[in-house]
């Protein structure tokens, strides 16, 4: 039986298209959520639910703040300002193995990410400047490998 192991964190990365978001240190995806509606009523002993729509969730990336030096971080601002529907966001688990999560193009309509919060910066005298950027996922992300 073939056995599989998770990828080491340092093999990850963050790209929009071919532009790397330099300084990236973590990414997280909240995952899709299926809304459920309770359908039980008086005298029902057991609660029952029916499935409703799927919500795409959020992607959050954090890292070292390099806005003045890095084209990737500057691209986040551009995408925020114009409200782009980003279809080529790539959250890598392993760059060398080309394993990543990206908006699912097979949904109808095709999924995309939108920057909803950028330049969320913390700078502390005893540390280094860090940033957080948030994307709203319309549709869902899917793993590609």
């Amino acid at each position, binding site marked *: 039986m*073939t*056995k599989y*192991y998770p990828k080491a964190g340092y093999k990850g990365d963050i790209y929009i298209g071919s532009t790397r978001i330099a300084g990236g240190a973590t990414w997280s995806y909240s995952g899709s959520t299926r809304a459920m509606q309770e359908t039980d009523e008086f005298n029902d002993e057991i609660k029952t639910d029916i499935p409703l729509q799927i919500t795409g969730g959020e992607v959050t990336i954090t890292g070292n703040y390099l806005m003045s030096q890095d084209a990737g971080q500057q691209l986040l601002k551009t995408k925020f300002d114009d409200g782009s529907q980003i279809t080529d966001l790539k959250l890598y688990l392993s760059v060398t193995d080309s394993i990543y999560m990206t908006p699912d193009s097979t949904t109808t309509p095709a999924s995309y990410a939108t920057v909803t919060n950028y330049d969320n910066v913390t700078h502390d005298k005893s540390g280094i400047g860090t940033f957080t950027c948030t994307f709203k996922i319309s549709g869902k992300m899917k793993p590609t490998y």
Partner: protein
Amino acid sequence: MTDLFTAIMMRYNAAALSGSLTGLYNTQAPQDAVSPYCVFQLISDDADWTFSENVENCLLQFNLFSDESSPAEICTLFDLLKDAFDFHELTIDNYETIYMVRENSNLTRIEDVWQYNTTYRILLGEL
């Protein structure tokens, strides 16, 4: 662990580091080893298990030795050691290298011999 030691030696022989050392020895160098040389030693191997997979979490230490008066040679060797092993995916029979990361290093000089001691954490998954 024979498989790990073999993989370490294979990587050493393929890397530029081997061209700058007289030898790489497992745990103990011979008395007549010629400077500069390197000794590696398995410090620890902690086994871990999931429901279906076995993992070996190893600490491996490399000790570089140089009898030059200047630290220049041993610092160059340290750079070559990093080039050879930092984040390297060891090719090991029956195992997958999940990661190989350098954890800490220290430079010291004892009885006119420079020593650069470097520890790597290696996580291996049994196939």
